[in-house]
Every structure is written in structure tokens, then in C-alpha cells.
């Protein structure tokens, strides 16, 4: 079913909206959550919570890209669950965040600027300036938290090429964040 029709179901307060969302996106959402939490039970709970959040968000929200809308919710819920449970497991979020530490400019005099939206804007600018392939790679690794092998398979390239490209992208992002004095 097309996204706009599923969204229409949410707006019409039809429970079929949840079923159709699960049919179309359930697997992707569970995979996203599992890649962050490394627990099937937790992933299923987070996805169920996602549908509840989406139900409450509509009407009001009318997303053009329902998959992206739901993915953002799942990711946020999964990150919150990770922090609440204080579990640090090997794989998943731990590895990804370890890589992202390279994007944080060093220096004692760096002042953290938690200005609402500035960092997200900077990330959008950075990503839109990238060639499509690199942008997709970045998002699959750091938004969807796919493993290097999964990213490589999905992009039709070797794992080593993915690693090198991601390393260069992290360096480039770090330069951007330094230049804009963010983080």
C-alpha cells in the first residue's frame, strides 16, 4: 500500500493503519532497532511503541515519507531504551558511536553548543553536499546502524572500500563541525 494511503488510514483513525505499516515497514524497523539494541525482544517492543507514537502523532503530522517518519521514531525510542537500560553490548550502537567519536573535534577550549537545530542543520548541509553514494553509505551506517558488511552488500562494494570511505567521511564531518564551532 502506498505511503499516502497508509497515512490516510492514520488520519481516519483506522487500526488498519498499524497493520499496513507493519506489513510495509515492520521488518525494516525491527532490523533498525535490533542493530541498536542487539535484543529481539527489545526491538519488538520498540517497534510496537513506534506504532503507538505514530498513531498519536497523526493527525497533525502528515509525513510524505512514512518509512523515514517511522524510522526516526524507532531510532529515538531505541536510543532511549539503550540509555535507560545502561547496557553496553558488543556490536550495534557501541561500535557506531565509537566511530563517531572521531568526528568530535578535540581541544580543551571547544565549547559544546547545544543550540536547538543547529547541529541537525549542519548535518543536513554536510549530507546534501555529498555525492549520493557516499551520503547513502553514511546514513546506512550512522542512522540505520547497519554493520560494515551489511552496508557493503547493500551498496555492491567491498567492506574495505566502505571502511575507507566512511573514515574519510568522518574526517570531513569533523572538519565541518570544527569550522562551524559545533560540538
Amino acid at each position: 500500500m502506498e505511503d499516502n494511503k497508509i497515512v490516510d488510514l492514520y488520519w481516519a483513525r483506522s487500526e488498519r493503519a498499524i497493520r499496513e505499516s507493519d506489513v510495509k515497514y515492520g521488518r525494516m524497523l525491527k532490523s533498525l532497532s535490533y542493530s541498536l539494541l542487539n535484543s529481539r525482544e527489545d526491538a519488538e517492543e520498540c517497534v510496537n511503541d513506534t506504532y503507538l507514537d505514530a498513531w498519536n502523532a497523526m493527525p497533525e503530522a502528515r509525513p510524505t515519507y512514512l518509512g523515514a517518519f517511522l524510522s526516526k521514531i524507532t531510532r529515538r525510542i531505541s536510543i532511549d531504551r539503550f540509555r535507560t537500560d545502561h547496557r553496553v553490548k558488543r556490536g550495534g550502537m557501541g561500535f557506531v558511536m565509537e566511530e563517531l567519536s572521531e568526528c568530535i573535534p578535540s581541544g580543551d577550549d571547544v565549547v559544546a553548543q547545544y543550540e536547538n537545530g543547529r547541529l541537525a542543520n549542519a548535518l543536513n548541509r554536510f549530507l546534501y553536499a555529498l555525492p549520493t553514494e557516499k551520503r547513502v553509505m553514511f546514513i546506512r551506517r550512522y542512522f540505520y546502524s547497519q554493520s560494515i558488511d551489511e552496508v557493503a552488500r547493500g551498496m555492491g562494494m567491498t567492506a574495505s572500500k566502505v571502511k575507507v570511505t566512511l573514515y574519510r567521511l568522518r574526517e570531513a564531518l569533523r572538519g565541518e563541525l570544527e569550522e562551524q564551532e559545533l560540538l
Partner: protein
Amino acid sequence: MKHTKTEKITYLFREIGAIDDRLIHEAATWQPRRSAMPRVLLVAACLALSLALTVGAFVMASRRDKGEDAGAVGTPPTSETPASPDLDAVLLSQRETASYTTLSSAEEMDLFSGKVQVVWQYADTDELCVSRALSAGEVKDLTSQIGKGASVGESSPTLSCKVWIVMGDGRVVSPYLKSSAGNCGSDLFDYNAELLPSEDLVSCISEILA
């Protein structure tokens, strides 16, 4: 210091979740290129596409010159055809005034200037028209009206101008679109009108340009 860096990493990781929906959708659906088509087929496909685009552009230009509805060839106006939006009339009346500055292309538009501005483009030119920066009160009045107009129904009207509100922080919305996270872009995106701007919104823009 280690604790602070951990917080920053967590913050960065979390903020990656706030990037544009369009980017997330692209990453989810992107497929690597298949093996190249035979050269002859590729050239033939390109020629066919070029021809189709040229003919299409010519037909669209002819229809625009004649003032016909681009979506309904040979269909006379009916009582159900949406009337020409008032915002169009306001912007057309501004065409010969000095109430705005111009940019030669969208690439010159700074979407991160920190200023909220009304930006529009007449249908017959690539130039952009940019209003002065809006005051806080004007921003509040204008944004409160986004998404409040009447729906255009089945047929999207032919507009003389594309209109955007540049929010100054990378976000771009249009008064012709329903208010939603999915209708907030990060460039001067093309669109089909979903609704007619409300009278209050048109008044607001009219005062801004006065």
C-alpha cells in the same frame, strides 16, 4: 573531559536522527547501478528521452502562453476549477516595483542566513525574488497561517509564481502546501499546490511587500 566527549558523541548520534526525511528515504531505497546497458540501447534511450522532453517543454510553453490549464488540455474552465489564487495576483502586481531583490538562480539563495524571507519565482523566469527580512511579529503572523488555506481538491491550479518561505535555518516551507514535517524541505523545492493560501496569509505577504 572524557565524560563531556561521551555526551557530545551521544548528542551527535542522536542528532543524526533529525536529518531530513528525504535523505533517510533515499538511503533506504537506493540501489546500486545495474550493469551498463548495451551502448546502442543507451544512446537510443537518451535520444528518445531528449525528444520527449523537448516536445513536452514546447507543449507546456505553448499552453502557458495561451493561459490554458496545463493539466487539462482542451478542457474549458468550469465552476469547479479553482480560481486564480490571490497570492498570485499580489506577487504579479509587485513585478514592476522595487519591493524585493533578485537572484539569478536558486544556487545563490542563502538558506542559512538566519533571516526569514519570502521567496518567489515567476513562471517565465529562473530569477528569484527575495523579500526583505521579516520581523519577529511578521514571522509569527505568517507561519501561523501556513497550512490553513482551502484544499485545491483534485486539480492543482496553474500558478504564475512558485512561493516559498525561507526560514533562515535551512528549512523551507511553501504557503501552497499542507503543514507537515514531510512538506518542509531544505531547498527551493518544486511542488504541486495542495491548498490555496488563506486570506490572512495573502494579506500578511502583501503588507510585507508594501
